[in-house]
C-alpha cells in the first residue's frame, strides 16, 4: 500500500476535501461554491434532482472536469493538477459507463487489472469472479450479459484494485430488487471491511438511508443540506428520506407557481 501523505500536523488529510468548488459552463453555474470534507471509511450520499450538480461534482473529484475555481483534493492531491498520483488508489462505477462490449468478462478484468497494476492478476480475477458470482460468465462477452450481470462485472472491475476511495453513480439503477439488494450488501461489506471511503450518487432514497452515513444535498449547484439521513428526516419532520427529497423538490415547484401567480 502506498502511504498517505500526512498533513503538516502529522494527521492524514481527509480522503476528499473540497473547498469553494465552482464550475461554470458558459454563464450557467453547474456547481456553485460547494465545500465539504469526507471522513475516512464513511459512505456519503450525494443527492439532488436532475441538473443539481452531482455528476459535475463527481467528475471534478475524478479530475475529468477542471473546476472554474476552488479546489477538489482527493487523497491529498489536487485533482485538477496531479490526478495521476492517486488514480490507482480510487475507482469508479456507473451503469452509464460500460466496459468494452466485445471483450469477455475475463479479458475486461485482465485489461483493467493491467491498467491499475494489480499483482497476481490471475488470482485476483479468480477471487473477484468468485466474490461476484462471475465464474461461469468469465468467458462470455460483456455485451451479451444481462443488466444485473453487467453491474456485477462493473463492480468487480471497480474493486479490482482494492480502492481506498470508491465513486458510485447510481450503482443500482435499472436493477431488479433482489440484485439491487445484493449489490448494496456487497458494497456495504466492502466499505466497512476495507475502511474505504465512498461517494454515492443515487436517486434511490431507500438505498441512501440504508448505506449512507451522511447526506450532501445539492440544489442548482449549491449545497442545501449536509447531515446524517436521520438528522435530515428529523429536521424536515418527514417519515423518510424519500419524503424529504419530494418536499424539497416541490417546495421549489410551489415557489415557482407562487412567483408565476404573483406576476
Amino acid at each position, binding site marked *: 500500500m502506498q502511504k498517505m501523505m500526512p498533513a503538516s500536523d502529522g494527521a492524514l488529510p481527509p480522503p476528499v476535501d473540497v473547498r469553494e468548488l465552482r464550475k461554470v459552463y458558459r454563464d450557467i453555474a453547474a456547481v456553485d461554491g460547494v465545500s465539504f470534507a469526507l471522513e475516512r471509511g464513511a459512505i456519503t450520499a450525494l443527492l439532488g434532482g436532475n441538473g443539481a450538480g452531482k455528476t459535475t461534482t463527481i467528475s471534478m473529484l475524478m479530475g475529468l472536469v477542471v473546476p472554474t475555481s476552488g479546489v477538489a483534493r482527493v487523497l491529498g492531491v489536487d485533482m485538477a493538477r496531479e490526478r495521476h498520483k492517486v*488514480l490507482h488508489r480510487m475507482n469508479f462505477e456507473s451503469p452509464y459507463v460500460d466496459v468494452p462490449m466485445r471483450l469477455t468478462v475475463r*479479458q475486461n478484468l485482465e485489461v483493467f487489472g493491467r491498467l491499475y497494476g494489480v499483482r497476481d492478476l490471475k488470482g485476483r480475477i479468480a477471487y473477484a469472479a468468485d466474490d461476484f458470482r462471475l465464474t461461469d460468465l468469465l468467458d462470455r462477452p460483456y455485451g451479451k450479459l444481462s443488466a444485473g450481470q453487467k453491474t456485477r462485472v462493473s463492480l468487480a472491475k471497480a474493486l479490482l484494485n*482494492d480502492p481506498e476511495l470508491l465513486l458510485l453513480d447510481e450503482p443500482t439503477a435499472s436493477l431488479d430488487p433482489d440484485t439491487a439488494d445484493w449489490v448494496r450488501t456487497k458494497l456495504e461489506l466492502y466499505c466497512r471491511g476495507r475502511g474505504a471511503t465512498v461517494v454515492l450518487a443515487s436517486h434511490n432514497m431507500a438505498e441512501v438511508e440504508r448505506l449512507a452515513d451522511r447526506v450532501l444535498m445539492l440544489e442548482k449547484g449549491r449545497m442545501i443540506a449536509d447531515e446524517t439521513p436521520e438528522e435530515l428526516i428529523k429536521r424536515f419532520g418527514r417519515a423518510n428520506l424519500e419524503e424529504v427529497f419530494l418536499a424539497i423538490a416541490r417546495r421549489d415547484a410551489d415557489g415557482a407557481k407562487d412567483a408565476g401567480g404573483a406576476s
Partner: protein
Amino acid sequence: MTVQPPAGSHASPLGEQTSLAASARRVYGLILRYWYVIRSSWPRTAELIYWPLVQMLMWGFLQSYLAQTASFAAKAAGLFIGAVLLWDILVRSQLGFAVAFLEEIWSRNLGHLMMSPLRPAELVAALIAVSLIKLLVAMVPVALLAYFFFGFNVLGLGIAFAAFFANLVIMSWSLGLVSTGVVLRWGLGAESFAWLVVFVFLPLCCVYYPVATLPGWLQPVALALPPTYVFEGLRGVVLEGAFVGHLMVKSFVLNLVYFAAGCAVFAYFLQSARVNGTLVQMGE
C-alpha cells in the same frame, strides 16, 4: 469450491506505479484490449483488408492495361502499384490510430480509461502500437497480391521502402493525434473528421503525379508536407532507379515538426475537453 483471496490480501494488491516498467505494463494492457477486439470479430479483420485489396486490384489492372498501350507506363511498371501501396500505408495507419480511439467512445469506455491510472502519453503509445498491428494485418495480404498478381515486390525497394514506410507512419500518427484531439474536444459530432482528414493529402502530396504538375502557388504547400517527399522518392526509384536520400531526410525533419505539433494539439484538446466538460459527455 470457494476461491481464497490472494495471499496477503489485506496488503494492497497493487504493484509499483511510477516506473517505466509500470508505464509499459499499462500500454500493454491497452494494446491487449484492442487486440482482443480485432481477434473477436473476423468481419472486422476482413474490413481491414478489403479496401486496400480492392484499390490494389483496380490500380494493378489499370497499370497492366496502360503498360500494353503506352510506352511511359510500360517503362514505369510498378509506379501506380507502388504509389497505391504507400498511400494505403498512410491511410490505414491513420485510420488504425483514430478508429482504435473511436472504439472507446462507441463502447462508452472512455470514462473508465480516463479514470484509470493510464497517462495520456501511454494512451498515445498504445494507439501507435495498435495502428502498426492493424497496418500489418491490412498490408501484408496486399503486398502479397501486388507481388503474385502484378509482379511488384515492395521489399525489392530495399532501404528505400524502410525510409518510405517510416516517414508515412510517423505522418499518420501526427494526423491521428490531431483527429482524436478534435473528437475529444467536440465529441462524436466530429467523428467524420477522423475518417476523412487524411484524404485531403491525396491531391496535395502528389501521390500519382510529380509536384511540378501542381500550379505554382500550390507547390510550396505540397513541399511542406512530409509524404510528398516519399512519393517523389518512389518515382525516383521506379523511374530512374535512384534513391534520393536527402528527400527522406527532409521528410523526416518535417515529420518531427508535425509529430510535435500533433502531440501539442492532442494535449491542448484533452485539457480543453476537461475544461469544457466534454470528456464526461462522450458517446452521448
